């Protein structure tokens, strides 16, 4: 009975783990190329989940066809966030520190007031929420400042800065989604039938999700190893100065990999919805951020394939440990597995910070 349960859970873990792996590839890609840890990772997964939900509920699009939509949305978001917030902090062609003068500040304040007035008028016409228009005004003023001072790079503490910026981007996404869809948990039901393995039952949708993430992983592998564009990106990971010398446009590779990384993450959010029948809400990402970090560290942090295999290992460990923890008396196995993943993160960071699969030179 126990072993039947354990093997059943392990099969479920394998299927879920492959999707976890895909959900982490974007994180690893971004870290590999830009050396930026996307602390807002989970929020992008949440965007993917909402994409699937909305396409399914209001347009009847099966989630599997939501994948390309999610990829496009994710890549656009990635481009927007890269040029809007991340680029000034990481761009290799920054022009050094420039102080923002009083005159420029005055200009920015002028733009802000103008935008505010415009928003106020618009909100009268279009019935926009006033608060929302203030938010948009802040964003626009901010984009203006970044546009004027784009290319300004900080000399020190870029790590701290990028952590805080990606974190805030995640918060922005969560809050925007909360304003639009409220924070109640939603879900949808997409049923294609089940596959009975004797000791466990797998819904076909989960198998489809697992197959989808495997396909994406293989495509990414081929792209990295067989195409010029993929190899250019890899060259930036290996040695960004060397790549620049060889004529690779490092700036563009940064933008592209950030955007691709976010695209992959949003796509994985679509696949993850097949595993959470009623768990789609604006704050669902937090748990996945933690899991993605464990997985990325398992796989060596900078390697997307490492992340994929790390995901499978993690899925097996998580579901396996669930069975074992459920056997303990007096505990809540679900909460304990989440504690377990945190402990695993610390242990791996302590003993093998370069990842379990390979040692980086």
């Amino acid at each position, binding site marked *: 009975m126990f072993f039947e349960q354990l093997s059943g859970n392990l099969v479920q873990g394998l299927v879920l783990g492959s999707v976890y792996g895909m959900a982490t590839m974007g994180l690893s890609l971004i*870290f590999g190329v830009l*050396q930026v*840890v996307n*602390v807002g990772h989970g929020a992008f997964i949440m965007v993917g989940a909402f994409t699937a939900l909305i396409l399914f509920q209001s347009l009847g699009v099966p989630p599997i066809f939501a994948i390309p939509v999610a990829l496009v949305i994710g890549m656009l978001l990635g481009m927007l966030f890269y040029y809007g*917030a991340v680029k*000034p*902090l990481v761009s290799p062609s920054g022009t050094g520190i420039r102080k*923002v003068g009083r005159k420029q500040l005055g200009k920015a304040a002028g733009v802000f007031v103008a935008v505010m007035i415009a928003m106020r008028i618009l909100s009268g016409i279009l019935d926009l929420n006033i*608060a*929302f228009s*203030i*938010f948009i005004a*802040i*964003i626009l003023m*901010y984009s203006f*400042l970044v546009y004027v*001072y784009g290319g*300004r790079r*900080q000399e*020190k*503490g870029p*790590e*701290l*800065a990028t*952590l*805080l*910026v990606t*974190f*805030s*981007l995640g*918060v*922005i996404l*969560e*809050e925007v989604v*909360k*304003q639009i869809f409220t924070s109640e948990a939603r879900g949808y039901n997409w049923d294609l039938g089940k596959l009975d393995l004797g000791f466990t039952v797998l819904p076909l949708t989960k198998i489809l999700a697992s197959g989808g993430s495997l396909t994406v992983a293989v495509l990414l592998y081929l792209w990295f190893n067989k195409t010029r564009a993929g190899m250019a990106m890899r060259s930036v990971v290996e040695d960004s100065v060397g790549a620049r010398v060889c004529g690779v446009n490092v700036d563009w590779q940064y933008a592209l990999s950030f955007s691709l990384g976010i695209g992959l993450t949003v796509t994985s959010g679509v696949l993850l919805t097949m595993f959470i029948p009623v768990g789609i809400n604006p704050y669902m990402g*937090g*748990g996945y*951020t*933690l899991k993605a*970090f*464990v997985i990325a*560290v398992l796989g060596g942090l900078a390697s997307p394939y490492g992340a994929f295999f790390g995901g499978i290992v993690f899925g097996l460990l998580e579901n396996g440990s669930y069975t074992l*923890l459920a056997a303990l008396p*007096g*505990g*809540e*196995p679900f*909460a*304990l597995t*989440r*504690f377990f*993943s*945190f*402990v695993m*993160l*610390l242990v791996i*960071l*302590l003993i093998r*910070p370069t990842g379990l699969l390979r040692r980086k030179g």
Partner: protein
Amino acid sequence: MRGTGKYLPIVPVLAAYALLLLYGVATPGKWQLVAQLAFYCALGQAFNLFMGMTGYVDFGYVAFLGVGTYGMAVTISSLSDGGLGLGIILIGFLVAAVFSTLLAMAVGAVALRLRGAYFAIATIGVNEGFRYLIEGARIWNGADGIIFSRHLKTALGRKMAMSVSTFWADIFVFGVAVLAAVLTLYYLRNKVGYALLALREDEDAAKVMGIDVTRFKIIAFITSAALAGLLGASGWALKLTYVYPPDVFEIHYTVEAIIIVLLGGAGTLMGPIAGGLIYGVSKYFLAITLPGFQLLIFAPIIIAIIVIFPEGLVGILKGKVHGTRLEKYVI
């Protein structure tokens, strides 16, 4: 800088807290706002002690407040029949400090060996991890939390219990804020601060110079965590008289701490006060005018500060007073 002159920057800090306290006592109906502002200043001061001085971001910081809250809650709910009177609160603070110090030692033992991004990754799970440990292993009543208003009344009497949770808890918050400011200044003006400054600028160079960076990081980390524990014990436990895991392990408080420190200027003494007051007041008015939008408005502001004014308000002020007679008061 030598002699007593090196501690002069504490003057404006104490003045700011005294004015805030006076305003709160003298103006009817504003005590809650003042208490909230003091909480934000204290949170910023305590958080700044580690993040500002080392440049490491601890995303799991709120866990220290959480265990501090539990320290007070557990003490009061289990010792209320002991006839300790007000001594129970003192013991509660001690237990809170011990709990958060122990957690800081456990987390620090792993995380402080790591640098930069790896440190942030290691800490981001601390509050979630600890919350699920409490809920999963059913420690301290698990997910049900501890409600101890009844115990507080048994221990102190109804009237005293009321005044503790409506007035004295906030005074304790002021106390934590002042304590954090004093410790920050002491560190800044002594070996710890110089070592951490060297570490923040270039960790490898600091190591090569023979600075035991790990030791100083641990000192700052544990001090900051213990202060958070005291803050949780006063600002949350005593004030609310209940503790509930999802409330005290809520990552939004870490975000608030980050905003406050960055607004005011990381690594400065007065920064957290400036940041705490600005953040607290604007949040107060936003909560009235635009409820539910605070985070949405503050998140872009964090990005804007980082990209455009990385040195924060007090950082800018420091540049302005450089070379003038005010210089020795601003740090």
